[in-house]
């Protein structure tokens, strides 16, 4: 039987605020345990939450960027359950009236197709603390620094049909929240993580199969693997005559498998009700207009502009707009190079991306700034150096040896364009290769490459390749 996979994602993006969603404690990562848990975060008797205005603005930004409705009125609700990392015995979240709802995002698949993924809702909530299971004589330690950190939970429609689509969607949301500067996207620190709802059904069947929810996946690679594992598991269960159970599962990256979280199995009855300590959040058109004005250019619009302005292909433009930092780097390079978008794109996606990738660095940590790179590309453009020499110059810039001009000067890499000088060298090469001349003249024209190579070798690559070609042909014909 042919199976169809149905996936929906719940992405938790930690909002990049200074203070927590309902308290004035810091959200900075990595502090000593419980040093950033104030009375409100600890849920001491008598404390009350007050909403951080920035989270509302951030959620609205996300809503506007995903063609969603930004609710004029949204309500915080309590989700009640007992867990030691949840100090109040309830999580403040949004239930019936989320701040953002009914939007979508278009994703580009590698096969060139575009898929539209529905966004059901995005709601604000507070994060819980952390349970540390290292041994305290068989007890668990609770660190509540993370309790109260603002989260935007972005819930998609079950619109994805493969793990690859899920990854593409997650990457796009990841890029988007960073474009919007509402989340730092740091997956190691848990700032961006997701739960995946996965089910399978026979191809052509309309009704959804029973789904399993895979919790807390914190890398793109793991999303793909976890979903693929889960899909296979479910198909195996069904084909073996069994039934998929609706349950919460945990992805174990070390074993590359998902397993049932039995402890969360008991029927959860969260007893949601509007939080009486908080009033409805009401937003007017003026506020929404203001937020709209603050929106940066978004990836899709930027891609179109890159294609238009720089003559880039769709795939190049998509790659370059994959993150705001990369797009900015590219644009600054173009500015510094004085144009030549295509050349800049090739360098940014080729040489620059290659070394960064090899060294495991982010674009923001590139030792070659867009200004340096652009300066070098200008020297290619004006014929000072060839593309080949440029790689040498780039490497030197990467190692911190200065600007392209400094390096060219210091290392004497300036291209030889003077035809008299080139002619002289060609003459020497030809004089040393009578046999090859004979063969060339007898019709072995591919030997031209041999002569070019010899000339370049003699000039340490500095001769202008175009000029060399032209002169060689002429002199060999004489």
């Amino acid at each position, binding site marked *: 039987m042919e199976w169809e996979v149905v996936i929906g994602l719940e992405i938790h993006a930690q909002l990049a*605020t*200074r*203070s927590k969603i309902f*308290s*004035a*404690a*810091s959200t900075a990562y990595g502090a*000593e*345990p*419980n*040093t*950033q*848990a*104030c*009375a409100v975060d*600890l849920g*001491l008797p008598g404390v009350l939450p*007050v*909403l*951080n*205005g*920035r*989270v*509302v603005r951030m959620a609205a930004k996300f809503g506007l960027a995903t063609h969603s409705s930004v609710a004029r009125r949204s*309500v*915080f609700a309590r989700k009640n359950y*007992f867990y*030691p990392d949840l100090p109040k015995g309830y999580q403040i979240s949004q239930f019936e009236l989320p701040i953002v709802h009914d939007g979508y995002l278009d994703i580009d698949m590698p096969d060139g197709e575009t898929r539209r993924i529905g966004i059901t809702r995005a709601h604000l909530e507070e994060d819980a603390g952390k*349970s*540390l*299971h290292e041994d*305290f004589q*068989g*007890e*668990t*330690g*609770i*660190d*509540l620094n993370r309790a109260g950190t603002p989260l935007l939970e972005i819930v998609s429609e079950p619109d994805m049909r493969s793990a690859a689509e899920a990854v593409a969607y997650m990457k796009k949301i990841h890029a988007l929240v960073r474009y919007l500067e509402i989340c730092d996207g740091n997956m190691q620190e848990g700032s961006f993580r997701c739960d995946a709802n996965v089910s399978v059904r026979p191809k052509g069947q309309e009704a959804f199969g029973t789904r399993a929810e895979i919790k807390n996946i914190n890398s793109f690679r793991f999303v793909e693997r976890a979903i693929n594992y889960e899909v296979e598991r479910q198909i195996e269960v069904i084909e073996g005559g069994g039934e998929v159970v609706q349950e919460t599962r*945990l992805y174990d990256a070390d074993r590359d498998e998902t397993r049932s*979280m039995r*402890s969360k199995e008991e029927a959860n*009855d969260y*007893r949601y009700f*509007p939080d*009486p300590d*908080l*009033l*409805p*959040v*009401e937003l007017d058109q003026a506020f929404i207009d203001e937020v709209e004005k603050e929106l940066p250019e978004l990836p899709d619009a930027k891609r179109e502009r890159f294609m238009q302005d720089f003559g880039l292909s769709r795939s190049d433009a998509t790659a370059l707009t994959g993150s705001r930092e990369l797009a900015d780097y590219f644009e600054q390079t173009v500015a510094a190079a004085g144009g030549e978008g295509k050349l800049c794109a090739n360098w940014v996606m080729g040489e620059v991306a290659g070394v960064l990738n090899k060294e495991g660095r982010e674009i923001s940590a590139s030792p070659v700034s867009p200004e340096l790179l652009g300066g070098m590309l200008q020297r290619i453009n004006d014929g000072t150096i060839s593309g080949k020499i440029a790689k040498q110059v780039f490497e030197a810039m990467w190692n911190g040896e200065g600007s392209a001009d400094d390096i060219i000067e210091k290392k004497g890499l300036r291209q030889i364009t003077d035809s008299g000088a080139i002619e002289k060298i060609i003459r020497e090469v030809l004089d040393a290769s009578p046999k090859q001349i004979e063969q060339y003249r007898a019709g072995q024209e591919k030997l031209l490459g041999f002569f070019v190579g010899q000339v370049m070798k003699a000039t340490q690559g500095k001769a202008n390749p175009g000029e060399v070609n032209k002169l060689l042909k002429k002199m060999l014909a004489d």
Partner: protein
Amino acid sequence: MSLDSEAVSKIAHLARLGVEQSEYETYARNLSDILTFIEQLNSVDTRGVEPMAHPLDASQRLRPDEVTETNQRDRFQRIAPRTAAGLYLVPKVID
């Protein structure tokens, strides 16, 4: 509405509330009385009435995103039943 001991036990579990076996029946009777009393509400037609969560028709005030709280861990943990290395301790949590 009448609740039996089993229902009380279920609710008590949801609320993580220890209730002695011997008290179940009293609670069941008390709760049933209360629920019966509450059911007077059904005598009124509330179709189309918007639920009122709050006495005042106000909207949420927004706080500036500023950090004004400082580390008071020692002060807060002085009143905690069990801590170690700055952490609150609980019996082992099994995921």
